[in-house]
């Protein structure tokens, strides 16, 4: 294996004028990279948008929270429907169950029938009315 026969770049060739063109292309790197560098204002845009979005979220959240927690409900302010709903929810009933329950709510007649069947005297029933 003699070096004379196997010259350094033996076997490898390059297109004509390749190294001149390579030098030119490589020399363009600094200006090419400069154009890729974004101005500070552009760099900040996503962060500003994110901060603005966060601020809006905070404001709206705070408003909703205040609205819901500062109202002091008393039991008398609530109608029957609201009480049923609140207690049903606390019992873990679904909205569907609640609606069924509302539809099936006993009216006055049902209550009287129930009292009769349970052996309540008519006098007592009359006093309730």
């Amino acid at each position, binding site marked *: 294996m003699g070096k004379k*026969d196997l010259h350094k770049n*033996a076997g*490898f*060739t390059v*297109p004509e004028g390749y190294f001149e063109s390579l030098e030119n292309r490589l*020399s363009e*790197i*600094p200006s090419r*990279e400069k154009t890729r560098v974004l101005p500070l204002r552009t760099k900040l845009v996503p962060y500003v948008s994110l901060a603005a979005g966060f601020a809006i979220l905070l404001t709206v959240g705070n408003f909703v929270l205040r609205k819901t927690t500062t109202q002091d409900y008393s039991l008398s302010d609530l109608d029957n429907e609201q009480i049923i709903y609140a207690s049903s929810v606390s019992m873990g009933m679904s909205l569907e169950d609640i609606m069924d329950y509302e539809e099936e709510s006993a009216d006055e007649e049902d209550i009287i029938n129930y009292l009769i069947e349970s052996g309540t005297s008519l006098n007592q029933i009359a006093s309730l009315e």
Partner: protein
Amino acid sequence: MTDKEIVEEYNNGSREKAFNELVKTYSERVYWLIRRFVLSHEDADDLVQEVFLKVWKYLPGFRGESGLFTWIYKIATNEALNFLHRQKIRSALQFESLSSELERRIDDDPYFNGNNAVIMLHKAIATLPEKQKTVFLMRYYEELPYEEISAITGTSVGALKASYHIAYEKIREHLEKNKDWD
């Protein structure tokens, strides 16, 4: 312009001028170093651009602990080895070996016109493991002193000498086995 002058020019604010000097001084050498690793002209061309892109990017952090030449060669060697590593994975996924893939590249490359002896030599080098290939290419073709190769690769001079010897023997054996070339 010497390396020292280029660095001074850069530090004095003439960054682009200094970079262009670097390109003038080293682009061809870097190309040949990489070409011997990856064999194909197209791949070498892509990698040279990657190397100088990194040189431009990291030049502000260059502290001059090693010479500019050593630093650039280190980047170039890393790029070439990383490329070969990616090729190795790709070849493995296609149930091929990297050396057979590289051999195919020699046969297919339109910018390769060596005689049989040269082709056999390059194919033999392609079979070498990473470290042996690196030291062989830098010592045999670039004729770099072991101390310089040591600074580039971070391997001790003793280990490099041993690797070169093993690489040389492997190549000799490979060429012996394929004596048909003229």
